[in-house]
């Protein structure tokens, strides 16, 4: 058996060669842990680990460190996200040591949405906040690796006990400038990423061609790729993502399928929602099967945003249930 870097459940599943499933848990704007506990129970058993977002869209929420620990207590393995937006390298490394001390084993390094995103709709956010970006994602991956493998802080000071993280990074394969994206991925891999989770994929063929380019650069020799699946809820959501979310293109036939599901409901709003959600789950299952067929893809990262209960029918429908368990875990 291969030596584990972190011994996390996600790392074990990937090492076993079975397709991995990660989910996503967004912490609340609240000091009450109940919502994290509830979501953890909904996700538990249907994924190998769940990403705990780090003040996603630059809105203040329970910190990813704390929410990760709450989820872990409930039996859901966390993938603690860490953005480069809010902390300098001192705070990052302190939080990494703290998280490791509390038993967190997976960490996903991301740039983070710009703080200007916080002001949207009814939310005021903190668009006037200072952005940190002391280090970027590639550098943060390198810092985690140096802490884990060399037992050293970024500045060179020795750690008495090194934090054993399974290191992740994100990838937007279909973002601009598209011909540079495989190189971008290669840098994250070279810096030390053990696994990669992508932005939501709807255009499977375009993703396949980006994967081929990344494979040619040697990106998947020791790094596992988890393709991102954003579960669509409605035709409107698909249209919005296609038009407004960076790095996401939605083929017109998928939007048409959702629109058809919506039309089938007539004027019945409740039915409209039900039929579109059912179609969304179907689409997610199909996408999962398609991406798992692409060489290099070792699992899926299913993002059912504020719709955690969708994970169960999706994972079951995709033939990915039950999730692997390990006797000695």
């Amino acid at each position: 058996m291969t030596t584990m870097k972190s011994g996390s459940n996600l790392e074990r599943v990937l090492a076993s060669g079975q397709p991995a499933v990660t989910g996503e848990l967004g912490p609340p704007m609240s000091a009450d842990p109940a919502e994290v506990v509830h979501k953890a129970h909904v996700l538990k058993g249907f994924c190998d680990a769940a990403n705990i977002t780090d003040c996603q869209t630059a809105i203040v929420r329970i910190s990813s460190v704390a929410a990760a620990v709450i989820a872990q207590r409930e039996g859901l393995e966390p993938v603690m996200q860490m953005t480069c937006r809010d902390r300098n390298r001192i705070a990052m490394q302190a939080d990494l040591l703290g998280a490791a001390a509390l038993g967190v084993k997976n960490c996903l390094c991301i740039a983070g949405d710009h703080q200007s995103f916080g002001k949207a709709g009814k939310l005021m956010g903190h668009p006037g906040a200072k952005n940190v970006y002391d280090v970027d994602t590639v550098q943060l991956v390198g810092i985690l690796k140096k802490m884990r493998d060399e037992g050293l802080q970024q500045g060179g000071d020795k750690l008495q006990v090194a934090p054993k993280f399974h290191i992740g990074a994100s990838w937007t394969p279909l973002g601009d400038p598209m011909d540079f994206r495989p190189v971008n991925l290669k840098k994250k891999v070279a810096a030390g990423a053990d696994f990669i989770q992508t932005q939501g994929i709807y255009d499977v063929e375009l993703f396949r061609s980006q994967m081929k380019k990344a494979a040619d650069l040697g990106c998947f020799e020791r790094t596992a790729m988890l393709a991102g699946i954003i579960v669509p809820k409605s035709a409107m959501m698909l249209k919005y993502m296609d038009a407004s979310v960076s790095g996401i293109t939605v083929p017109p036939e998928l939007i048409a399928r959702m629109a058809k599901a919506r039309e089938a409901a007539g004027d019945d709003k409740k039915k409209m929602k039900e039929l579109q959600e059912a179609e969304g789950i179907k689409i997610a299952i199909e996408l999962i099967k398609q991406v798992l067929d692409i060489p290099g893809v070792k699992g899926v990262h299913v993002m059912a945003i504020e719709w955690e209960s969708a994970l169960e029918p999706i994972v079951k429908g995709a033939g990915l249930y039950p999730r692997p368990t390990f006797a000695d875990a």
Partner: protein
Amino acid sequence: MIVGSQKPFPELWEMVQGFKKVLVLGCNTCVAICHAGGGKEAEIIAAMLRMKAAEDGVALETDHDAVQRQCEPEYFDPLMEKLRGYDLVISTACGVGVNFLSKLIGATPVYPGVNTSFYGAVPAAGVFVELCAGCGNCILHLTGGICPIARCSKSLMNGPCGGTDKGKCEVSKDIDCAWYLIVERMKELGTLARLGEIQPPRNWATARDGGPKRIVLEHIADLEEAEAKK
């Protein structure tokens, strides 16, 4: 050059409250080029303050003047006595001028008339863009002459984030994605392969993070000192 924009008039009016004799002092270098704080703008601000004072029945005397550069002492020499004759000087130089004059002038307050914004260029008449962050450790030879520190909203060093859309930044469609520009430029130069090299965490101590900076050219400073002793 240093680019700034004039403070909104209500803010300037608020600043002069309680003062009787105010000089608006322009700077005829950078801020004159960006139409924010040159001699002409200083004259207009002084006139606007005067008109507002007359309208409100407030006793306020305002004058205007300008120097070529408010960042070197010799430009103030012929003016210093005059400057000290006012209750308040509003400097429409960049923040450097306001700081510098504050130190030279003595007990007279110096207030800012301009919001100093960035180091930039003038790609077209009336348009000013930020191109440099003055970070003290230039890497433009590695990025095709396009600065990711000044021009990427996240100052990323190893490539674009996931927020690039059709060459624009996630912060605003009016902002070009610096990394999109860098990639295109390096393709043009045939140096794209260099972007595959990982840039390690930076030493920000050369930027503002290391505390206020001071550069002393000893061979010149020593000469000046010797001259002064003669």
